């Protein structure tokens, strides 16, 4: 599986090969700069009536985030990058959010770089999809987790944002379903969680329908559920989906033009401390990175405002979302790590077999953890 990671050079090459070039980073992220990277894909969908296999949730339905290895001379396996960290985002592509794929591609280098800054030593793996409405031809476009610029640009340009409809309730619940039940991530196997971001300016039709599941994931979706470890015979309902998502992901809603009503509404599904209201999607990479950093404990709450300012986030934008960002559960991933029995693999760790959970010498051994009830002397 290699050791390639995202590089800006590869990104520029990938975009250039698709006829898109930028004179500067400012131009690339400018609101005025228009792209139309999915026009070819949309034309193909219009012609064939089928979604591209790379982003069709019905094909290879279970999306995997795996640890990457390279073979050693003595037939073992060396971790070639680091522990994988799955970061999935699903973007509203309806109505006024219809150009989100274009924006996602434009900010991709920043998304990757800033997330990696907050995840030192990890193999950042990104799945950036879109969702619409059940009246759309295709409710969900969901790719695999990818690590290189070429692959990510490729799947983004194969998406089919339909951009129909207004800003009333949409159907992201199927994206939540996919992330909860159709993801196989190494992070979960060692007691950690990946990341899930739902970016929307609307509320949700909170109903899971058997017909829609078949339409999106294929007639045999129940088999696929079982394949990925689901044990029930009834399809999960919305409460099950929300619970499962929170069990496996640090799941957040980024509510565009969100107000107190949106915080309460999404708070019912995700928890209010997992709802971040933003005025628009201009600084999405920075907001996602801040969330990841606070959750990982690599961004201190005291440094949040300065960090955002240092990354050129507008002062008014910071004021808008700072209150919510300060409620993100700081260090939540570290608490999971402390509670887990597992070592987080690092670059260069050796595994006996690719399917092993832990590197050599750490097979299922509980890690030592400090006793928090020690006497005063240990506090200082």
């Amino acid at each position, binding site marked *: 599986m290699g050791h390639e990671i995202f590089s800006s050079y590869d990104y520029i090459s990938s975009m250039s090969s698709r006829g898109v070039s930028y004179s500067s980073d400012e131009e690339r992220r400018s609101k005025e700069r228009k792209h139309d990277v999915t026009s070819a894909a949309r034309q193909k969908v219009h012609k064939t009536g089928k979604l591209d296999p790379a982003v069709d949730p019905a094909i290879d339905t279970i999306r995997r985030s795996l640890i990457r290895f390279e073979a050693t001379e003595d037939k073992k396996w060396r971790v070639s990058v680091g522990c994988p960290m799955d970061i999935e985002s699903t973007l509203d592509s309806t109505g006024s959010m219809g150009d989100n794929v274009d924006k996602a591609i434009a900010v991709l280098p920043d998304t990757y770089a800033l997330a990696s800054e907050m995840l030192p030593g990890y193999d950042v793996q990104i799945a950036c999809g879109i969702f619409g409405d059940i009246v759309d031809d295709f409710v969900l476009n969901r790719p695999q987790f990818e690590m290189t610029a070429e692959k990510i640009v490729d799947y983004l340009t194969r998406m089919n944002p339909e951009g129909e409809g207004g800003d009333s309730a949409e159907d992201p619940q199927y994206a939540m379903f996919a992330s909860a039940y159709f993801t196989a991530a190494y992070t979960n196997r060692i007691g950690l969680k990946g990341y899930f971001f739902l970016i929307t300016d609307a509320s949700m039709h909170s109903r899971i329908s058997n017909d829609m599941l078949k339409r999106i994931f294929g007639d045999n979706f129940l088999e696929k559920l079982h394949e990925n470890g689901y044990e029930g015979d009834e399809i999960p309902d919305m409460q099950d989906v929300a619970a499962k998502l929170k069990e496996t992901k640090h799941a957040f809603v980024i509510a565009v033009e969100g107000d107190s009503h949106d915080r*309460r509404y999404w708070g019912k599904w995700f928890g*209010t401390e997992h709802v971040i209201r933003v005025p628009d999607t201009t600084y999405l990479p920075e907001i996602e990175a801040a969330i990841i950093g*606070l959750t990982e*404990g690599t961004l*201190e*709450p*005291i440094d949040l405002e300065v960090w955002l300012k240092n990354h050129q986030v507008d002062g008014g934008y910071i004021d808008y979302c700072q*209150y919510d960002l*300060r409620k*993100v*559960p*700081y*260090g939540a991933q*570290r*608490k999971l790590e402390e509670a887990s029995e597992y070592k987080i693999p690092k670059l260069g760790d050796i595994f006996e077999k690719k399917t092993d959970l832990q590197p050599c010498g750490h097979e299922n051994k509980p890690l030592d953890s400090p006793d*928090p*009830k020690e006497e*005063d*002397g240990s*506090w*200082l």
Partner: protein
Amino acid sequence: MILKDRDGNEICSFDKSDLLFSSDARQIKIYRVRSIADGKIKLLKVPYDKLSNNLIQNEADFLRFLADKSDEFEKKNKQLGNEYLIHYDWLFPVLEDSFLTGPEQGGRQMNLLSIRDAHVADFVPLAKMFSDYRVDARTSAWMLGRMLKLQTFVEQCGASFCAHRDYIIFEPKSHRLVYLNWLDATRNPDNFRDNVASLKESATCFTCWTNWYSEEEGLEYDSDRFTNEEELLETYRFLTEYPEIDAIEAHRILYKTLDSLWGRNYHPFTYIKASELIWHSLGSDDDFCP
């Protein structure tokens, strides 16, 4: 021991025996410390590890918010032509500094706190006195009045917090009371249940601390022993049993009772130790060291 921030600047010095509070639930401790900058005694909030840094930051943000709001209220009060100061800022600590320690001290965030217009060293934790002492009704009344004033202020700011008696400190001679725990305070006005719980906690705390109350007999009013306090006791009962009223109303009810009983005259801090039978009233030259 000297505590330094992550840039190596010395902040304060203290000994582990200077512990004021310890909270198992949050693994946060409060120490009395000496500030390196000005040599004064202050309070330092210390988390066990850095995973509580967000709570410390939340408290820092909230204290700045309260300080700004207090200034706003004073300005409005002056614009109404009033010469007196409201002094909501006497009820919560001053945030002197919020800093991260270096990695050798766990990369923890800590809040350095002081008390406006008063000396930290003169303050007594209520928790230290609760079991072994009782106060008379007028003493508990002025203290409850301070807590209700604080809650009135917080509610008017559109915020909420969950009060607990362990975080109340007071200076008995000048009738100062300060509440120290703002880790979970929030500017979300929807959290009205926290404010209701705070009101109930305050009323219950001071009801139980008054000499009407004993561990063995519970709340018992002996009209032979206590004269003209029954009305106050009934007010306390009401606030304890029906805390769903807002703090402004609770404050009004309490002071209506106090005005009818005693007026607003100064009453010295008057207490009795459970193991003694002698009442003490704290004079201006007396020291108080429970």
